[in-house]
């Protein structure tokens, strides 16, 4: 079973040479730390920066240079700043190759819910709806079950949707799964996790074909 760091580490392997990548808040942000350093990747933040670097050294924070999580950041050589319309033009125009974000629920048809829980204070969808509606390659990073132990991989989402039929891949603390026409296709098990455990934790249709390898990290 993986912790959040482990999920980020596994997702980092999905990041290929030459990719522009948008990382959501939470686990996705951690992914940047584990991308191989022999490949070239640029991170985009939808508030208007391409070529994000690490956090600044203490005392070098600049209030005018932040990421979409409102955190102070730095930029790498080759970086650029732009306005919000241009930023979402990059996303909508499919120039960003990979979007990694968290979710409350994912359905076997690729629907995703990650912005609103009825009855609770709604903070808003931010850029999530634009990202999931536009990107061709969306990976969800999340725990397989919620705090009550209930599956977050469902037949149908119960929460208000963020986007429809858009999720391609899911990396959880238990498994790597791909969304295929018939449901969640199991690709890899987390280290030490049995197929039985994954089955129990998955409410949606789980497709198990052949041997399912343990993931390599």
């Amino acid at each position, binding site marked *: 079973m993986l912790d959040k760091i482990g999920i980020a580490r596994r997702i980092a392997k999905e990041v290929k040479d030459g990719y522009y990548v948008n990382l959501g808040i939470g686990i996705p942000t951690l992914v940047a730390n584990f991308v191989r350093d022999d490949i070239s990747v640029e991170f985009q*933040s*939808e*508030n*208007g*920066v391409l070529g994000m670097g*690490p*956090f*600044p*050294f*203490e*005392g*070098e*924070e*600049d*209030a*005018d*240079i*932040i*990421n*979409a*999580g*409102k*955190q*102070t*950041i730095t930029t790498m050589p080759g970086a650029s*700043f*732009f*306005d*919000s*319309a241009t*930023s*979402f033009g990059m*996303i*909508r125009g499919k120039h960003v190759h990979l979007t990694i974000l968290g979710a409350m629920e994912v359905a076997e048809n690729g*629907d995703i819910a990650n912005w609103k829980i009825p009855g609770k*204070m*709604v*903070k*808003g*969808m*931010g*850029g*999530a*709806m*634009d990202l999931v*509606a*536009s990107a061709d390659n969306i990976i969800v990073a999340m725990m397989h079950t919620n705090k009550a132990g209930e599956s977050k991989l469902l037949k149908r989402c119960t929460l*208000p*949707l*963020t*986007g*429809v*039929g858009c999720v391609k891949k899911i990396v959880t603390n238990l498994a790597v799964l791909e969304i295929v026409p018939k449901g969640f296709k199991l690709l890899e098990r987390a280290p030490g996790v049995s197929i039985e455990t994954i089955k129990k934790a998955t409410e949606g249709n789980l497709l198990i074909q052949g041997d399912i390898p343990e993931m390599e990290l």
Partner: protein
Amino acid sequence: MIRKTVKDSREALQGVEDGMTFMLGGFGLCGIPENAISELVRLEIKNITCISNNAGVDDFGLGLLLQKHQIKKMISSYVGENDEFERQMLSGELEVELTPQGTLAEKCKAAQSGFPAFYTPAGYGTEVAEGKETREFNGKMHVLEYAYSADFAFVKAWKGDEAGNLIFKGTARNFNPCMCGAAKITVAEVEELLPAGSLDPNEIHIPGIFVQRIFQGKQYEKRIEQRTVRPRN
């Protein structure tokens, strides 16, 4: 050269009235028009509709207007980090319209550029698209979204000149350029106001034609919302 300079925020905000709709630049607390917000507080303008990506924090940014109950409606993509906002929203005192961030930016940009409406895939199949016209293009469903209409746009730039030309810094750019020229009157406040001819015409982000009034801002706090750093070695 058409001169756009005004003396200060008081002169810049002449004409604002209760019940108006304002666009306000900024993302979080980054690049917000601090002087214009202070002046709106001072003027005690009420029943405002604010188009702004975020709603500030409790004691800064648009939070200052919320404290004084000046805002009737917020149009934003994300409104976390603000307890007073939550209180007013849950009590029904504050109306909130949540809009996807890219759609919000483009609804401003459309108003700037004279496009009445546009089709975007964002929000299709979600409650954001409820009651809206949808249409398929290239096998993908899109939602028809309309340009905003606003009385004033308040933006903040890094440098500006007498002709109203603006240059932004870093991610403080964000929604500010999209809102210029998107309201009846655009008011720009800048950290550094320069004579016409000081800025390289190639480096201008927003030509002065999109700005009606420009003034030298004062006492920028530029508060950092999430101060994240790394150790030095």
